[in-house]
C-alpha cells in the first residue's frame, strides 16, 4: 500500500446499542486490506473501547483512522466533560461510569488501560468542560 487512507466516523452518543459499529467497520476494512489478525485485533479493540467511552461519557464524538504503510493512527475526539485527572483515569479499575453502564458490561475501569495495552503509543489531551482527544498508534 503506497497511499494514505482515511476512514472517518461520527459516533452517535445517544445509542448504546449501536456503539461499536465503527470498530466493526474498521475491522472489516483492515481485513480486506490484508493486515495480520493481530494488528486488526489491536486496532479494533482499542477503537471499540474508545467508542464505548465516547458513548458512555461524552455523548458521542468522531473517530478518524488513518492507515499508512507502516502504521495505523486512531484519533478519537469528543466534546464531553473532559478528564480531570488523566493519571487516575488510566488506573485499571478506576471508573466514573454510572451504575447502569456496569450492568451493560462496561464501566469496570478497563477502557483506557485496554486502549493503552493494545496500542504502541497513546496520548490523551483533555480539558475539563471542553472535551477529550485520544490519539493512538499501532505500528504495522
Amino acid at each position, binding site marked *: 500500500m503506497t497511499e494514505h487512507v482515511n476512514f472517518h466516523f461520527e459516533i452517535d452518543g445517544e445509542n448504546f446499542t449501536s456503539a*461499536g459499529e465503527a470498530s466493526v467497520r474498521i475491522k472489516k476494512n483492515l481485513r480486506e486490506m490484508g493486515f495480520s489478525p493481530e494488528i486488526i485485533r489491536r486496532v479494533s479493540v482499542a477503537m471499540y473501547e474508545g467508542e464505548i467511552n465516547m458513548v458512555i461519557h461524552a455523548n458521542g464524538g468522531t473517530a478518524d483512522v488513518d492507515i499508512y504503510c507502516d502504521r495505523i493512527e486512531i484519533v478519537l475526539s469528543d466534546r464531553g466533560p473532559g478528564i480531570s485527572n488523566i493519571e487516575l483515569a488510566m488506573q485499571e479499575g478506576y471508573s466514573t461510569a454510572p451504575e447502569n453502564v456496569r450492568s451493560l458490561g462496561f464501566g469496570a475501569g478497563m477502557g483506557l488501560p485496554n486502549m493503552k495495552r493494545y496500542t504502541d503509543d497513546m496520548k490523551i489531551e483533555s480539558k475539563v468542560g471542553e472535551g477529550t482527544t485520544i490519539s493512538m498508534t499501532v505500528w504495522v
Partner: protein
Amino acid sequence: MQIREIAKLLNAKVLCGEEHLDREVKSACGCDMMSDVLAFVKDQAVLITGLCNPQVVRTAMMMDMRCIVFVRGKNPPQEVIDLACSAGIVVLASDERMYTACGTLYVNGLAGGAEVHDRAC
C-alpha cells in the same frame, strides 16, 4: 471440542449458527464484564455470559470468537441473535448457571487459558 458438544453438555438451545456446530474450539472464558473479556482473552473461542445486549456480540467479534453461550436461562433479544448470525457466530442458550456451565465444560476438556499480561495479543 466441537460446538455441538458444548450445546449437548449444557443442554443448550441453538439460537443461530446451526451450520457451524461442527467447528472445533479449544478454550473458553466466562465473564459478564466485556472490558475484562477485551483485556484478558487471547485465543478463547467461546464466550459464556449472562449479559444479553449487542455489545456482547461486538466484543466477541472484536476477539474473533466463534460461539456465545448465554447462561442462566437468558433469552437474548432478536437483534442480538441477528447481529451474531451476521457475524457467523454460533449462539447457544442454556438454563445452567455460569459456574456450573464453566465447570461442566472445563471438566470435559475445554480449557480456560486466559492470560494476564501487559499486552493481550
